[in-house]
């Protein structure tokens, strides 16, 4: 017999309405009925504190607080009713550094966008079947990471520094740039059948 998923209560926090709808549709189709959504981390955390959720999906990049900050709040805030809740972070950024960064903030699983139904289900099965123990240290509380730490980028913030110096103007194109633009147009024409 397969899981009985209808008793689960799930919270989806994403500022993209399409992704919220997509996740809700998939989860509903597999039998989950109690699905709440929030469009930012602040209202999401507010919802989280009011009801008992079994699982949280959150986007990575949101304003005014990011998915990472939200994970922090769920894990460490005194208001949090369930610091052990599994958190699945959804993101277009799937490079190792960001995944590790998410784990460092207490995220349970990472779901890279675009995702398929199969992959989403495998994350769901993973949090059900392979829950990791939690670790509490002076600086961390969350699922056991047991992953190698990566070096973080410590270079200058190029664009910010540049903004202060550069006047905005549309610059002239070089021969190579014009050629690249022309080539992309030709390939668009091919796919458009023009």
């Amino acid at each position, binding site marked *: 017999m397969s899981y009985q998923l209808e008793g689960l209560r799930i919270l989806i926090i994403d500022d993209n309405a399409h992704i919220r709808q997509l996740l809700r549709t998939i989860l509903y189709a597999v039998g989950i009925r109690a699905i709440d959504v929030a469009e930012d981390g602040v209202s999401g955390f507010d919802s989280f504190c009011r009801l008992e959720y079994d699982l949280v999906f959150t986007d990575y990049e949101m304003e005014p607080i990011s998915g990472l900050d939200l994970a922090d709040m769920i894990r460490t805030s005194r208001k949090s009713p369930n610091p052990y809740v599994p958190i699945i972070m959804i993101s*277009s950024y799937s490079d190792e550094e960001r995944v590790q960064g998410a784990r460092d903030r207490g995220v349970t699983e990472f779901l890279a966008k675009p995702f398929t139904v199969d992959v989403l289900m495998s994350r769901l099965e993973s*949090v059900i*079947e392979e*829950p990791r123990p*939690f670790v509490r240290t002076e600086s961390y509380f969350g699922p056991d990471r047991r992953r190698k730490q990566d070096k973080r980028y410590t270079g200058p913030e190029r664009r910010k520094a540049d903004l202060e110096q550069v006047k905005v103007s549309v610059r002239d194109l070089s021969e190579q740039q014009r050629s690249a633009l022309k080539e*992309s147009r030709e*390939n668009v024409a091919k796919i458009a059948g023009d």
Partner: protein
Amino acid sequence: MAEKSQGNGAYQLITPPNLLKAKVGKGGMSGIDPELIKRAEGVIDTMGDDFADSVTIEITRLMQLAMDLEDDPSKAEKVLKKARRIGHDLRGQGATYGYDLISDVASSLYRYAERLYSFAELNPDVLRAHADAMRAVIKNQVKGDGGEVGIDLVKSLDSLVEQMAG
């Protein structure tokens, strides 16, 4: 709850009860019903048309941004932020609906917005090139990677980004 410690500083290892498993797997049940997964995939297929409509809206926005930039280059920062967001959102959705090329083109747009050294370098023609590419994909309902033509399209956009924001 179990507790452990290491020589280089104490830490606590906690094994909370598996409430999820207890809730969904009563009586040894395991795995998600394959029939339900199939049903979910079927629903996603039917959402593909809605997705194509939403891409069309984003293409219009992107073209408008290109025009705004041309009309008033001082809007470059706002235009870049919005174009980056369009790239970010669409790259995360296209392949879910079978439109892998939309994800690829949107990734290229996102990369362009991320790699620009200054707002002054933001070029409306690059925004249009990405909008045109997405429009062609949606108009012709090109699913998957689009074969050789699709691969060439993505390569040329990558090369364009390399040239314009390398």
